[in-house]
């Protein structure tokens, strides 16, 4: 018995080591990005980090609580415009813009979540889709605030006090730092009481209610948190790119986000993060394969939408557990190796996640 718990703690140490190595890789990556197109590569990697942040919020909402959102691009946009308005138009510091993005998306999430409480499944999906489209129209039409269809330019770079995140490296570290923080927060949430009730909600609403879970409060909270993650991502996006326009915050992007969450798999944070990285890089294959010819690049970009769509359909049909499911299987084998070489039935972890 004591031998086994010793092994389990050894396994946990292995897991912690994996996480530490991953963090280190992400942290030192910019130091190895050199050469003529270093700026471009770092920009793309920063963009990957922004998507990881949004998809982490979607993983909580969709993967853990089982609630669909086809309107997350709208929260991303709300955060971006709120932050842009506060920093560029009002001339406030970036962290005030960030706070505004958080406040506005929290309110937006609340405004959508509360009346949607009765809705589930496809009705909820449609309501979020409708909300997203309305927000997109607002982004276009409320031109005195948003700059209309031409977009909003001249947004200042992110800064903290007198420090301005001016180099591509510092922006990369900022974005990935925030993303890592969001994943850590999410990890704590999903491995504790709130995460358990989210998974219960996903499993059986009746069962969750009969266990004393306040579904109303739970759904609203998860929705708001996931909206705020998208809003923070929006604020980072606006400040790092310096320009936002409505064409970024479309239904199409909402679907791409869902594709990432689906490919990542349910009840996981690592899976969706990996999927966000993979699917974002599909748009930039020249980053992964630097020698790629322009023609191939053009073909890939031309078929990008089809790739996303096929990923969605094929994953749901043939790999419903997504990347996380595959990861769990591998980790299961690994653990059996570490914990019980005999390979007998071992306890599954209590954590809902392998991240």
């Amino acid at each position, binding site marked *: 018995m004591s031998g086994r718990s010793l092994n389990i703690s050894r396994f946990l140490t292995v897991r912690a080591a994996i996480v530490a190595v991953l963090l280190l890789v992400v942290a030192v990556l910019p130091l190895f990005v050199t050469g003529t197109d270093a700026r471009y590569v770092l920009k793309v990697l920063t963009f990957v980090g922004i998507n990881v942040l949004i998809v982490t919020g979607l993983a909580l909402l969709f993967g853990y609580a089982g609630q669909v959102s086809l309107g997350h691009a709208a929260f991303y946009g709300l955060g971006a415009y709120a932050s842009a308005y506060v920093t560029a138009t009002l001339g406030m510091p970036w962290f005030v813009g960030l706070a505004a993005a958080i406040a506005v998306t929290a309110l937006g999430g609340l405004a959508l979540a509360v009346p949607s409480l009765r809705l589930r499944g496809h009705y909820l999906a449609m309501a979020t889709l409708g909300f997203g489209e309305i927000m997109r129209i607002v982004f276009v039409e409320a031109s005195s605030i948003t700059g209309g269809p031409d977009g909003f330019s001249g947004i200042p770079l992110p800064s903290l006090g007198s420090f301005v995140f001016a180099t591509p490296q510092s922006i990369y570290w900022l974005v990935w730092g925030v993303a890592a923080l969001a994943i850590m927060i999410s990890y704590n949430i999903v491995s504790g009481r709130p995460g358990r009730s989210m998974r219960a909600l996903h499993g059986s609403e009746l069962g969750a209610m009969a266990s004393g879970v306040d579904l109303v409060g739970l759904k609203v909270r998860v929705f708001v948190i996931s909206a705020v993650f998208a809003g923070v991502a929006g604020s980072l996006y606006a400040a790092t790119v310096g320009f936002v326009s409505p064409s970024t915050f479309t239904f199409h992007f909402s679907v791409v986000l869902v594709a990432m969450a689906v490919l990542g798999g349910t009840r996981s944070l690592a899976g969706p993060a990996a999927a966000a990285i993979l699917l974002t890089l599909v748009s930039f294959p020249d980053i992964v394969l630097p020698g790629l010819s322009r023609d191939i690049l053009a073909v890939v970009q031309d078929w990008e939408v089809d790739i996303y769509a096929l990923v969605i359909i094929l994953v749901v*049909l043939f790999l419903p557990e997504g990347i996380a499911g595959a990861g769990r299987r591998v980790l299961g084998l690994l653990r059996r190796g570490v914990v019980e070489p005999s390979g007998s039935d071992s306890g599954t972890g209590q954590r809902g996640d392998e991240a």
Partner: protein
Amino acid sequence: MISSTGLFQGRHGKTVDTPELLQFALAGLKNGSIYALVALGFTIVYASTGVLNFAQGEFVMLGGMLSVWAYSTLGLPLPLAGLLGVLLTGLVGVIFELLAIRPRKDGDPLALIIITVGGSMLLSSLARHLFGPTEKALPRFSEGSVNIFGASLERQSLWIFGIAAVAVVLLTFMYSYTRLGKAMRACAIDRNAARLVGIEPRMMVTLSFGLAAILGGLAGLATTPLTQTAFNVGPSFGVKGFAAAILGGLGNPFAAVLGGLTLGLLESMSVAFISSTYKDAISLIILLLVLFVRPQGLFGGSSRQKV
């Protein structure tokens, strides 16, 4: 405010007289007929599978695009081109069901939502590869317009009313009097019972997708001469058709038609009296209001979840 000459005052100070109002109403009914066809498609698939087909709007796009292709590329005469376009759209609906819906045997609603969303994206993207990114037009079925109490109505609008009306009548006839229609209804009510009396539910699901696609295709064919079409018009038709279906009450064909016409009227009246800036937002706002306040629809009975 109603003045002595019977003028209505719009919010922007623009005045709307009676023929003009009629003009708006007719335009609303014309759009509403299109929405009704799309809403019927939603309803048919929903009744047989319990699934909302998020790709429904793409059938409208395909109906237009394939007809244009048959007309300009194949050089078929317009009636034949339209027929071919609609039938091919129906075929796409069947293939979509066979390839993307049927393999997911457990029918998990969350999974099917996502599959149809992916399907929607795929269909529109494939249409772009096949037919290009530009807008496409089709000649009107008949030129000119008629005068109705001072309002002028394009003859193409009459075609739209006609096509929608015939589709609804045929559908009603099929559901009430043909073996196939009865089988589909039986299946929607109770799958296992249907299987017991020798109806294969899977077949009915496939057929319902085909039928829904044909209805969408008809809508696309009828509206393309007026509004043109392009690979990316699907989602907007889908959302409006769904708003119509939910406004009426999902699952009831008549309610779907009523919902479509009501939505079309509401939309054009709001343009007449409020503003055209947010025209596209109107149906979305109606959609959200209905979802939040009365998800069973205006014409649907109350429903309660069974525990």
